[in-house]
């Protein structure tokens, strides 16, 4: 029996290449028999629940969904989902997922990774997956700390962070994952929060529907080693001023409508103003579909690099570009049309001679 003999469905292009099911599904169908082993209060629980709750909405056949992870607390994710899954090695999940997505267009491929996994040891794979635009969705759990190795600073930790490996404070400037992804010209870049199930689900739906590499940064609280890192954007008293919500086609305002974004003619970027000072019409309308990532990048710069008192949340960019895997399969398809068989290839073009018995 060959691959084509397996009950894999027909192979054609488009977002719908993953086979769907008519059977009603529930979150329970996606829950494996494994005991979940994150620390009590870990933000990962909320994301897992949201994913288990949201997957049935996709209506895909469970056997055509694959979750691949690297190493870290969040990378245990695949064990808890009753789909196909691989828990791989540190930082390499995007490369493994690239192979899966390129070999099989009928699979919905998901990568679960963290700030250390994706941005430190696996940084190279992440940026190359994003520029290639392989059809997969990357969930980047950003808790701004190393959890599994017990609390060292991570590439998204604020400078000066005191940890076991940096008793006098960390020295390195942090990455902003959204800025990094936009710099790599990712076609789908979003940011959401573990505790906001509704927003998380909306973003995940859009990411899954997007053909290409979708990067979703999820702010995730680690109560053990970095508790409260996202309090300012979660606390009911502060979040109105801390979250800059991005909704495609809507003016970008926050602080209960008092503050908004306008273009900054001095820097070429964007800046925060009092809406009352400039008037509603001057406020920047969010355009996630702008083929030029410049404005999205400028918006991403409004994220605090230090303690997080302010951060744009939502879909920064969502544009269409042919995917690597679709094009790779297309090349094979086109070449097949005119190809000589293997025997002809092995025979070679000329310079063949025969020895008679």
């Amino acid at each position, binding site marked *: 029996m060959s691959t084509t003999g397996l009950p894999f469905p027909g192979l054609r292009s488009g977002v719908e290449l993953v086979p769907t099911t008519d059977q009603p599904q529930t979150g329970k169908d996606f829950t494996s028999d494994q005991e979940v082993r994150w620390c009590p209060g870990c933000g990962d629980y909320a994301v897992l629940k949201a994913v288990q709750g949201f997957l049935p909405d996709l209506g895909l*056949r469970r056997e055509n969904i694959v979750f691949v992870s690297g190493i870290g607390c969040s990378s245990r994710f695949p064990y808890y989902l009753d789909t196909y899954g691989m828990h791989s090695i540190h930082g390499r999940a995007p490369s493994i997922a690239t192979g899966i997505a390129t070999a099989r267009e009928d699979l919905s491929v998901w990568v679960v990774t963290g700030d250390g996994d994706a941005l430190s040891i696996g940084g190279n794979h992440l940026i190359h997956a994003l520029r290639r635009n392989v059809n997969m969705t990357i969930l980047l759990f950003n808790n701004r700390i190393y959890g599994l190795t017990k609390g060292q600073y991570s590439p998204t930790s604020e400078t000066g962070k005191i940890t076991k490996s940096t008793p006098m404070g960390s020295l390195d400037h942090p990455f902003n994952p959204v800025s990094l992804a936009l710099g790599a010209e990712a076609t789908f870049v979003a940011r959401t929060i573990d505790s906001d199930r509704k927003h998380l689900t909306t973003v995940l739906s859009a990411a899954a529907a997007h053909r290409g590499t979708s990067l979703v940064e999820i702010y995730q609280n680690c109560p053990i080693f970095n508790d409260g890192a996202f309090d300012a954007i979660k606390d009911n008293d502060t979040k109105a001023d801390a979250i800059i919500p991005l909704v495609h086609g809507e003016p970008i305002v926050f602080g209960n409508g008092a503050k908004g974004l306008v273009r900054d003619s001095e820097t070429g970027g964007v800046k925060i103003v009092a809406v009352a000072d400039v008037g509603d019409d001057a406020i920047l309308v969010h355009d996630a579909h702008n083929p030029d990532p410049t404005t999205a990048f400028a918006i991403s710069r409004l994220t605090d690099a230090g303690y997080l008192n302010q951060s744009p949340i939502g879909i920064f960019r969502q544009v269409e570009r042919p995917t690597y895997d679709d094009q790779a399969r297309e090349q094979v398809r086109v070449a097949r049309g005119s190809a000589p068989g293997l025997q002809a290839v092995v025979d070679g073009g000329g310079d*063949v001679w025969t020895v008679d018995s």
Partner: protein
Amino acid sequence: MTVETPKPVEQLERVVIRFAGDSGDGMQLTGDRFTQETAVFGNDLSTLPSFPAEIRAPAGTIPGVSSFQLHFASRDILTPGDHPHVLVAMNPAALRANVADLRPGATIIVDTHDFTARNLAKAGYDANPLDDGSLDDFTVHAIDLTGIAVAATSEFGLSRKDAARSKNMLALGLLSWMYGRPVEGTLSHLASKFAGRPSVRDANIAALRAGWNFGETTEAFAVRYEVEPAAAAPGRYRNVTGNTALSYGILAAGDRSGLPVFLGAYPITPASDVLHELSRHKGLGVTTFQAEDEIAGIGAALGAAYAGVLGVTITSGPGIALKSEAIGLAVMLELPLVVVDVQRGGPSTGLPTKTEQADLLQAMYGRNGEAPLPIVAPRSPGDCFDAALEAARIAITYRTPVMLLSDGYLANGSEPWRIPEIAALPRIEPAFATGPNRRVVEKDGSLSDVFWPYLRDESTLARPWAPPGVAGLEHRIGGIEKAGHAENGTGDISYDPANHDRMVRLRQAKVDAVAESVAGVEVDDPSGRARLLMVGWGSTYGPIGAGVRRVRDLGHDVAQVHLRHLNPFPTNLGEVLRRYDKVLVPEMNLGQLSLLLRAKYLVDAQPLTSVRGMPFGAEEMERLILDALADLGERPHRSTTLAHVRRLDLQEAGK
């Protein structure tokens, strides 16, 4: 004008020719074309290209010299030859870099065009070797090949520089005349290669013809030589390099298993040609992925294997070092994966364009933890086809990464190859899992059929291969230790000490079980009286075989064993080794196979080591074997050797 009489023809049994010139002189192409002509003519042959690691080292200098050696004969041969009978030197540096390899009586054809004071100095000559008597031991043909080429191509309107570039075709034409090579293949090669540039095409063809005519008409070349075709098994033949044959082996594995091939690779010398070759065959369902680094290359191949296709990654030693962690993951996941290491001189960057066999222990042990994997090695360029097919067979059958150890000498060297009939090759059965494989008792006492991803086949110990897409087989696998044995094949994470101990031993036992599917080693010991056994692996096959033949020609008994499988060893190997009084292991490293043999079998296997970036020479091997025989008290040897060497010299010089 004198009446032309056909020049006399002299019969030779074998000839070694070396083309040498500057990197930009087209010596590899010239050698390759002469090789193709020779192959079509029906001689047996063996080639050794040699080129600098730099793309264009400074012109006219010794480091910039590129050469191509070809050994062809009217009988079967095993090595590219130790000492060229003919050296074609296109500039002073090429002469200086190669003349030391010649024996007295050899022929040198020199392009005098670059023998200017400046170029002589660049090559490190104080005086012009063409007139200081230093070449008196040789037959020297000093000819302005460049000048003749420029004159012969004047009508095509090329720049002087472009016209001069056809000098390599002039040299090829001259040598083709000397040895009666058919040039039709070269003519059509030039026609297609320069189809878009008719003037270049015509100039090259004119230069080739001019070279041929020059030989025919010039008195300096008094005789032509003839080397009769060699006897060969019936069949269709072509010439093939190791990297090409290896690529075809991978394609054939895809064909015979019915699996699409997915290659993930990062360019690296001397493996890149496999990436190039496979990239040309998308029409056969091959996907090639040029990754951002070595790790992503294997990562994608492993992902593809998980998805149910034939995953392959190719690299050289430095790339294996980078891939080690992912290879360990493949061992843990128990997925089929072919990992090709085209070895080169190491450590670190080492000698990228030179050959070595020093990655054997890296292949065996270069991973954290107990991470065994099967290792196979080809013995000749054409054999790379069979070795690749065998690697894929083991990988697919046993669900394991397999290391295929080629090397730079095999990769770039070539030989006549009997073209296999693909459809007649044995099938490889992927045997995907299609449904539940285990009945379990649920907590409530009911029975249900489930899928255990690590429920093993009893004889191969292989686990099921269950690519995504089949309902009911959803499962999770990973690099963490897991329960994966007969009582619990769920693959669930397990940190239980006894389970880990069991799993480590199971993974080892599975690799050991591969030996059951492999024939025992064949011992080449025609008389059955040999006391000395030569054991080799990989590309030392040719030199060891050639040395063994020479020693047998002297009337001595010596046995030879050559290993295709380095891990696990064939089951009869220990018994074979113990049969002999002395066991010698020639290797292009510091004794890696001998170390393994000694450790496993407690035999006194002695390494014979060479790490010069070059294969052993046949003559060198003969001496090493004779010395070993002398240690065993087999005489006479020394005087015979010298006489024998002298006899061969005379024969080689055509006297």
